[in-house]
C-alpha cells in the first residue's frame, strides 16, 4: 500500500477551496451519489439531534452531553468506509455521536439515552449517554477514561488476528487522549504484532480547555506513528470524502500490513460539554472563526455544487430531521427511567 507512506507535513487541503472554485470533484472509488445523499441525510439528522440535546440540557432534561459538532464529517467518512467494507469493529470515545448514531440508531433511541430513560441501547441508562456497547452495530465504548479503549481495541484486533477472521478494528480518540501512556502502549504493541487496527485521532486542538501547544511539542500527532513502525496520515477531518478515502485505504493496509494512524484535523464547534464555558479559555475571534469551518455546511455546499441535492431537497431533508427529532424528543420525554430494581442486575455475567 504505497499511498500510505508517512505524510506529516502540515494541514491537508480543505474541502472549501475546491468548492469555492466550483470544480467538479470525481467521486471516490466505490461511492455512488445515492451513498452521499444517504450520508447527508444521516449527517443532518445527527446535527439536528446534537443541537436539540444541548437545548434539552438547558431545559434540565438532559443531565450532560458532549457535542460532536465539527466532528461529523470525519466520523461519517470512516463509517462509510467501514460499512462498504462490511467487516469492521469500532471502539469510539465520548465525542463520537456521529459514528454511534450513524451506525443505525434511531433518533428515539438516542433521545432515550440522553435523557437517561429505559431503552437506552448502550447501557440502559447506567452510563453517560451512548456509552457501553451496541454490539448490533459492532461498537464497544466501555468508559470515560480517555485512552482506556486503545489497549482494549488492540487486544480485540489481536483476537481477530488469532481467529483469522479478517476483521479490522477502528479506535477513536481525541488529541487529549494522545498524551496518555496507554496510547503509547497500544500503538507500540500493535506495531510489534502488525495488528489489523486503525487508530483515528480526532484532533480538534483542545483537551477540554488545554490547547494543543500545551499538550505536545509537535504539530501533528501523526508524526508519532513512525516511532511505532507504521504509517501516520494527516486527513482533512472536515471533509467527509477525504475521511472516507483515508479510512478505505487504512482498512486495506490494516488487513494486509498492520496498523495505521489517521490524524483527522477538525474543529470542536461547541464547548467540551454542556457543563463547560469555552469563552473562558478560547478567544472570541477564534470561536467565531471555527464556526465558519462547519463540516455540515461544507458537505451541504458540496452536495449542492456537485448537483447531488438541490436547495429544496436539502430543506426537505432538514424538515424530515426536525420532525423525526421532535417525535423522538416527545417520546423520550414521556418515557420512564429504568426501574430502581435494575440497580443490582448484571454486576456479574452468568
Amino acid at each position: 500500500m504505497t499511498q500510505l507512506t508517512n505524510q506529516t507535513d502540515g494541514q491537508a487541503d480543505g474541502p472549501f477551496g475546491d468548492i469555492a472554485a466550483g470544480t467538479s470533484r470525481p467521486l471516490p472509488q466505490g461511492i455512488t451519489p445515492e451513498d452521499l445523499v444517504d450520508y447527508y441525510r444521516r449527517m443532518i439528522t445527527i446535527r439536528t439531534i446534537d443541537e436539540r440535546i444541548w437545548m434539552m440540557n438547558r431545559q434540565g432534561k438532559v443531565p450532560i452531553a458532549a457535542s460532536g459538532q465539527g466532528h461529523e464529517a470525519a466520523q461519517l467518512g470512516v463509517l462509510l468506509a467501514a460499512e462498504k467494507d462490511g467487516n469492521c469493529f469500532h471502539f469510539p470515545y465520548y465525542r463520537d455521536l456521529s459514528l454511534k448514531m450513524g451506525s443505525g440508531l434511531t433518533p428515539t433511541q438516542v433521545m432515550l439515552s440522553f435523557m437517561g430513560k429505559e431503552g437506552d441501547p448502550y447501557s440502559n441508562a447506567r452510563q453517560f449517554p451512548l456509552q457501553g456497547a451496541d454490539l448490533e452495530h459492532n461498537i464497544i465504548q466501555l468508559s470515560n477514561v480517555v485512552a482506556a479503549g486503545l489497549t482494549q481495541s488492540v487486544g480485540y484486533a489481536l483476537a481477530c488476528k488469532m481467529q483469522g477472521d479478517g476483521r479490522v478494528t477502528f479506535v477513536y480518540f481525541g488529541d487529549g487522549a494522545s498524551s496518555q501512556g496507554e496510547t503509547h502502549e497500544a500503538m507500540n504493541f500493535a506495531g510489534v504484532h502488525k495488528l489489523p487496527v486503525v487508530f483515528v485521532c480526532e484532533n480538534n486542538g483542545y483537551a477540554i480547555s488545554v490547547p494543543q501547544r500545551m499538550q505536545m511539542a509537535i504539530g501533528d500527532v501523526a508524526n508519532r506513528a513512525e516511532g511505532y513502525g507504521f504509517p501516520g496520515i494527516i486527513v482533512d477531518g472536515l471533509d467527509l470524502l477525504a475521511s472516507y478515502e483515508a479510512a478505505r485505504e487504512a482498512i486495506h493496509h490494516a488487513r494486509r500490513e498492520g496498523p495505521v494512524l489517521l490524524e483527522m484535523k477538525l474543529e470542536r464547534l461547541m464547548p467540551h460539554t454542556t457543563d463547560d464555558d469555552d469563552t473562558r479559555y478560547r478567544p472570541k475571534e477564534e470561536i467565531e472563526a471555527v464556526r465558519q469551518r462547519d463540516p455540515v455546511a461544507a458537505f451541504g455546499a458540496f452536495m449542492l455544487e456537485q448537483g447531488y441535492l438541490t436547495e429544496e431537497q436539502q430543506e426537505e431533508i432538514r424538515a424530515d430531521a426536525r420532525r423525526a427529532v421532535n417525535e423522538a424528543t416527545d417520546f423520550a420525554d414521556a418515557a420512564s427511567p429504568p426501574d430502581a430494581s435494575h440497580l443490582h442486575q448484571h454486576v456479574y455475567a452468568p
Partner: protein
Amino acid sequence: MAVKSVIEAVREAMREEMQRDERVFVLGEDVGWRGGVFLATQGFIEEFGQERVIDMPLAEASIMGIALGASFRGMRPIPEVEFADFLWPAVNQLIGEAARASYGTNGAVNAPVTIRIPYGGGIRGGLFHSQNVEAYFFHTPGLKVVAPCTPYDAKGLLKTAIRDNNPVVFLEHKKTYRLVRGDVPEEEYLLPIGEAEVKRPGRNLTVVSYGLMVHYCLEAAEQLAAEGIADVEVVDLRTLKPLDTDTVLASVKKTGKLLVVHEDNITGGVGSEIAALAADQAFDYLDAPVARVCGPDVPTMPFAQTLEDAYMPSTQKIVEALRNLAAY
C-alpha cells in the same frame, strides 16, 4: 494421586485448559521462552506456540487492557503480572474497566479474563516484591477474587476461574509455590469459586484465613491442641469474593469465638469485613470480641530480616492470639 507443588498445580491447570479450549491463551512479561518469572508457563511456548504464549512488552496497563479487549472478541486470556507490586499500572483496566464490563453494558459484554498475580511476603522481597493487594479487589464489585493455599485448591480453582465469564483476580502466594506440596488427582476436577473449606474441624475457636497464613493457622491449631488449650477450627476462605459467608457464620455460631488472620494490612482488609459479618449476623453467638492477627499499617514488609519478621504474622503470633481468645 501424585504429590505436587503449588506452582506445578498452577502450570497443570493452565496447560489442561489450553489443551481443552483454543480460546485460552497466556500473555505477560517473560511468559514465553523464559517460561515465566516463577516458571508457571514452562514448556508452554514449545507446546502451544508463540501465538498463544505471548511475551509482552514490559507495560502492565497494556497487558491487562489487551487481555480485556481480546476477551471482548470471545477469547479467554490469562494475563500474568510478575509480582503483585507491579500491578498498579494495570489497575485502571482491572478495576475501572474489566470489573464494569458487564454492568456498564447492561450485560451485553463479558470479560472472561483470569489475571494471575503472584503476591505476598516472607521471602525477603522488600517493599516492591512482597505486597498483598487483595483488599483493593475484594472491595470491587464485578471482580471475583480467589486466593488458594494448596496445590489441590490452586489447580481446581484456576481451571474454574479460566472457564468463568467474569474477570477473576487469581492470587498465588509466592512463598507457597514450592514450599507447599500436596496430593493432586490425576483425573480432571474443578472446584467451585465462592466456597470456603474447613481445613481443620474444631469445637472451641474459629480461625478464618486464606493463602500462606492458612498453613500457619493450622500449625497454631495443632500447638493449642497439643497443649490441651483448645480445639481450633480453621476455615480457609479460598475465595475472597464472593465471600462464603455461610461457612464462616456456621463455624462462628458453633465455636462462639473468632480470630481472623491475614498478611495484608489490618485496616480495611478482608478481616474487617469478616469481623463486621460476625457482628452483624452472629452477634448473639459471640463469647468474645473478634480478634485479628494481620499485617500492621506500614506500606508493606521491609527488606531487612528483622523488619520483615516484625511485619509478618507468624505461627507464634497466631498461637498467642488464640490463647488470649481461649482465656477470654
